[in-house]
């Protein structure tokens, strides 16, 4: 993902690379040089990961988090980040708020309301930490399983026979269209760029013009040769738009020897 940050293994030997030097341990006083702070935070896959690190680093039992201490540490980081005006993912702030809330509830005298014993304010956090921790381990487990093209390679032997032609996979146009629909849906949902809704025929014409020029030995065709009478007015418009678009994209140029003489179209050769 991010090459500046190295994977933090479960034992946490190496936190990050800062200026080429591996960042082994967080200093006890938690002072982190400003430049390293961002790298430090990027090392973590979110607030739960950071909390787990803080807890583990001190050999704290997860079921008995000294909320005050961990909260203070956590909030210190967040404040440092904010002081440095670094962009901070919202999740980190949400977690800071949650920790602050737990802390305040811990400080209140505990009330026992009849049968329903009030739940320990930490339990929800602990549940989430545990849950995350097990999947974090599972992910490491999965990464260790030998996999194709990293640890194993498929093996083949050639089959030589005259009459055998390995049939090529068949596909249906529908499958192509569905695939493209998916692409369009994804783009609609997640991204800012748009496929230009250019009329298809212009794009097709662009391809056709280019290949025609490439096939032509002279690589040089008269402007009028691209227009055919049969296609009528719309055909002319499409061809004209395609030629303009190709010029705009720097794929061909239109040249003229002298005013009012024949226009020539030629591809821009590299």
């Amino acid at each position: 993902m991010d090459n500046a940050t190295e994977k933090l293994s479960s034992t946490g030997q190496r936190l990050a690379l800062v200026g080429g030097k591996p960042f082994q341990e967080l200093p006890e006083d938690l002072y982190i040089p400003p430049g390293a702070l961002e790298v430090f935070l990027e090392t973590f896959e979110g607030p739960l990961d950071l909390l787990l690190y803080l807890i583990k680093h001190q050999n704290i039992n997860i079921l008995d988090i000294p909320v005050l201490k961990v909260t203070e540490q956590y909030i210190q980081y967040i404040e440092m980040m904010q002081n440095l005006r670094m962009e901070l993912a919202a999740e980190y702030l949400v977690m800071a708020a949650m920790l602050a809330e737990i802390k305040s509830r811990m400080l209140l005298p505990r009330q026992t309301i009849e049968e329903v014993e009030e739940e320990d304010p930490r339990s929800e956090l602990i549940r989430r930490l545990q849950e995350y921790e097990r999947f974090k381990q599972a992910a490491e487990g999965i990464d260790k399983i030998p996999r194709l093209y990293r640890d194993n390679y498929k093996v083949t032997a050639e089959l030589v026979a005259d009459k055998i032609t390995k049939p090529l996979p068949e596909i249906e146009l529908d499958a192509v269209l569905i695939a493209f629909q998916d692409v369009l849906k994804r783009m609609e949902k997640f991204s800012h760029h748009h496929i230009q809704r250019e009329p298809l025929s212009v794009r097709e014409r662009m391809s056709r013009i280019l290949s025609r020029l490439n096939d032509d030995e002279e690589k040089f065709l008269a402007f009028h040769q691209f227009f055919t009478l049969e296609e009528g007015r719309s055909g002319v418009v499409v061809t004209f738009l395609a030629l303009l678009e190709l010029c705009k994209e720097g794929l061909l140029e239109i040249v003229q020897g002298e005013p009012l003489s024949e226009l020539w179209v030629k591809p821009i050769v590299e």
Partner: protein
Amino acid sequence: MNTEISNIIEASLFAAGESLTVNELQNLFSVEDRPDKRRVKECLEQLQQDYQEKPIELIETASGFRFQVRTKYADWVSRLWEEKPVKYGRALLETLAIIAYQQPATRGEIEEIRGVSVSTNVIRTLLEREWVNVIGHKEVPGKPALYATTKEFLDYFSLQTLAELPPLATLQNIDILKATDIQLKLGEEAVEPEGATNEEE
């Protein structure tokens, strides 16, 4: 005759370059000469033994049997290609792990567990690799897609079933009030399920 069946099976596994099922191997033979399942399996077992000392091995994955280079030789073999094996980031691996163990899972459920949003890119890469696919939509507002792992995922990791994945650590009971003194350590020692292995419904 015996060895002929085995030879044909062996040659086919090499030529196919991908997994073949027992069924597919049986179909190589015309109806009258077709060996039964047991016979094919015996041949496959014999082949596995024949290659014991070799740098390649015959393994069984979700979609059948295939020959592959032993892990031990991966470093050398990888030099044949310029493209280096891809390293996946933690975000991708964690997302994959959640889908693998919790499937079918929605993106929201994955985010809930990880505590951060899942980047679209990660999901897309997983779909693209065909390690996961969308098997339906959850009947909740917004109808989020439900992701599950595929056969390709199992094949890629040389697994026959999901049950072969390393067991997921058991969740400890949270009973803090009574038991602030339980010594449960995180990390390496966390996997200590008593008897019955992975819970999770």
